[in-house]
């Protein structure tokens, strides 16, 4: 089986960084391309207690962090990769990105930046494993992460 394209969900959390690192290693072995996707929601720029950041400024800041910090393990590898900001809930954004790229695999962390939430419909990772028609790999939290 060929793994030409791997889509990895990215949100800047330690768990997401672990997922990016794992995807980079796998892509190096399999000679796959990687697309790192971050989903922009409606609320992300409204940090509690802070003045809201203008939407366009926030978008640029996220783009910069996506390219420079959140996908650093890809940047330091020899793997061919792209980064992409998409709008919408993470589950839909990742499923659509996988569809658009005809991805062979989706990689996410178990727990994103929004942390644990007691939801029956599930976290991004559990919803993806339920809804995706493509293989999904869920990377656990690195040992020692609070």
């Amino acid at each position, binding site marked *: 089986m060929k793994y030409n394209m791997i889509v990895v969900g990215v949100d800047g959390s330690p768990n997401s960084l672990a997922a990016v690192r794992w995807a980079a290693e796998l892509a190096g072995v399999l000679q796959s391309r990687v697309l790192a996707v971050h989903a922009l*929601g*409606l*609320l992300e720029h409204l940090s509690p207690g802070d003045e809201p950041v203008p939407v*366009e400024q926030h978008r640029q800041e996220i783009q910069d962090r996506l390219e420079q910090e959140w996908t650093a393990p890809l940047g330091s590898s020899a793997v061919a990769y792209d980064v992409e900001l998409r709008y919408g*809930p993470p589950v839909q*954004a990742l499923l659509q990105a996988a569809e658009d790229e005809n991805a062979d695999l989706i990689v996410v962390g178990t727990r994103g930046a*929004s942390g644990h939430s007691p939801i029956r*419909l599930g976290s991004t990772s559990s919803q993806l494993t339920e809804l995706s028609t493509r293989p999904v790999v869920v990377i656990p939290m690195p040992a020692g992460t609070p």
Partner: protein
Amino acid sequence: MIPILVLECATRTDLHFTGHGHPERAERVKAVQAGINRVGLGDSVVRGRGRPASRPELLRVHKEAYLDSLSAFIAGGGGDLDPDTHVSGGSWDAALWAAGSGLEAVEAFDRGDAASAFVVGRPPGHHATSGAAMGFCLLNNVAVTAAALAERGERVVIVDWDVHHGNGTQEIFWDDTRVLYVSTHEWPSYPGTGRPQEIGGPNALGLTINLPLPPGATGDVARFAIESVALPAAEKFGPTWVLISCGFDAHRDDPLAGLSWSAADYADLMTAVAPLAPAPGRLIAFLEGGYDLHALSLSAGAAVAAMAGQSYRPEPPTSGGPGWEQVKWWAELRKRAGIA
């Protein structure tokens, strides 16, 4: 004079708690009510409570499995549906009232009790797809009314001027020849849909019209888009009903988006779109977004005053922003394609 019916759903909207600090909050309804009161429309406005949507009414637009899972999730106490969308124990009841109150307006029109209606419900609806909640939306309020009207043989135009694209409404009526969906929205922005090339399904090509506007676009560009592209298309479609997804988050003070409209722009848009309704009792506006309470209050007052044919412009209209050239291009493109 036949009055405007304002359906407040007020006792129910409070039941939907989205969490501390969430911009989609119960105070929005109070701001809208205060804005309408401030205009002083007197007997031109009557108020009603609205009503909940029934399950068969919801099933015209939503999948049964989705309704079951959402209602069960809420009955279990709620939580986060996605990073933006939170529900509490009372959210299902609030959502049913927001979704059903447009149908109450239709019933009031059938009795001759009102000339137009404004549904002040929350949660908003236009992001809710047939099978998923997102973007603060649980049930697609405008779609529930549009589907009911379409089922009785009406031809429905939905004009959506919320700052975000109504992906849910577009999906629900994507291939439906009975409904024309027109949206102005900021681009790029949430939820990522609403490109001009999204024009409808194979049976309904041209019945979805997307008019994305660049950040900073002012009200004059939106009016131009509506007047030069949307209105000709709508007139050609020949609506018997007009529904408006009436978000107020394109206001320049809104914290969730980057367009630069003012309250007067909403009055002007309403004045431009309302005449599409072929007779009294064929126009309903539904509250969608709008998260700066002062801007929301002024804008809602201006829009409802315009529905009543009165001029209330607490801020001057805006002009001079970007986007003119692309709107001109779309209008030209539609002419060349023979779909103008």
